């Protein structure tokens, strides 16, 4: 419903309050009343920012509903995305254990062979064992990918939690004090190599 001037009543009330606040601020400034001047200006600023904050909170709630609690089983929710990523960590961990089982089996099978009768045979067996050790170490990639995925899961969870409780004074951030995890090319600064670490520790007397 509008007034004769085409302005809704609530809007007209607001305008009147705004005008009186502006007049009060001006009067306080002219009379040298600093305290009243600041109070009126603060009220004006609050007036100006309130619709923006309300809009942000509403947007966040809608996003939270769309991406979180409103998960519809169509692969769209953030919690579901986290569960999928955690599943990737789990199956790659199981796969690494299976590979380690096979490496151990091969090592045991190698041990059932008759003693090497020549130096050449002994050297071959030693070379195979050395390669088994390197294959074992190479399974460490699962730990590295797992660390990166867990970091992403933590970030997604922080975004999801933050959407449900938007506080403009507290920006979203990870509370991660356990380390940075593996460096990712193009995202993180170039990490130290083992040689760099050796040189650094050596310079520090280690």
């Amino acid at each position, binding site marked *: 419903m509008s007034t004769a001037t085409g302005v809704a009543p609530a809007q007209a009330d607001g305008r009147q309050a705004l005008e009186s606040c502006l007049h009060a601020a001006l009067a306080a400034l002219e009379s040298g009343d600093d305290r009243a001047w600041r109070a009126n200006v603060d009220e004006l600023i609050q007036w100006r920012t309130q619709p923006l904050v309300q809009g942000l909170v509403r947007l966040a709630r809608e996003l939270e509903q769309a991406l979180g609690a409103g998960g519809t089983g169509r692969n769209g929710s953030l919690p579901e995305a986290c569960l999928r990523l955690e599943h990737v960590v789990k199956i790659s961990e199981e796969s690494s254990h299976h590979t380690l089982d096979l490496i151990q089996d091969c090592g045991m099978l190698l041990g059932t062979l008759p003693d090497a009768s020549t130096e050449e045979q002994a050297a071959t067996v030693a070379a195979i064992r050395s390669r088994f050790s390197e294959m074992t170490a190479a399974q460490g990639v699962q730990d590295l990918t797992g660390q990166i995925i867990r970091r992403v899961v933590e970030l997604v969870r922080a975004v999801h939690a933050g959407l449900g409780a938007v506080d403009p004074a507290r920006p979203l951030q990870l509370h991660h004090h*356990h380390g940075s995890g593996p460096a990712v090319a193009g995202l993180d600064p170039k990490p*130290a190599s083992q040689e760099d*670490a050796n040189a650094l520790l050596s310079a520090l007397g280690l």
Partner: protein
Amino acid sequence: MDKNIRILIVDDFSTMRRIVKNLLNDLGFFNTAEADDGHSALAELRKGPFDLVVTDWNMPGMPGIDLLRAIRGDAALSRIPVLMVTAEAKREQIIEAAQAGVNGYVIKPFTAATLGDKLAKVFERLGAAA
């Protein structure tokens, strides 16, 4: 080197604990125990004598750097050598670990040869200091 020394392996990933354990086995060390973060590692360390700790840095609960500081700050544990095996590869982190009293630092991904080499160096220095 006494191959019967007791070694505690600390990592939150079961794969990595098994990898380190298997590589230690390949090098002839079979007397190992495991923990999945700094808190459970400290509980293990206080239960029984250990001669070496091989620990990750990035773990939920208590990270490896705090475990290292806790070990160095505990009179009963402070002399145990600690080898850090981690993906944390920033220069300042390596310095932080050195200042906290680490005995060796292996950056993931690592090779079996690198781990063997670092362990040998830790033992060599401890042998020389003894």
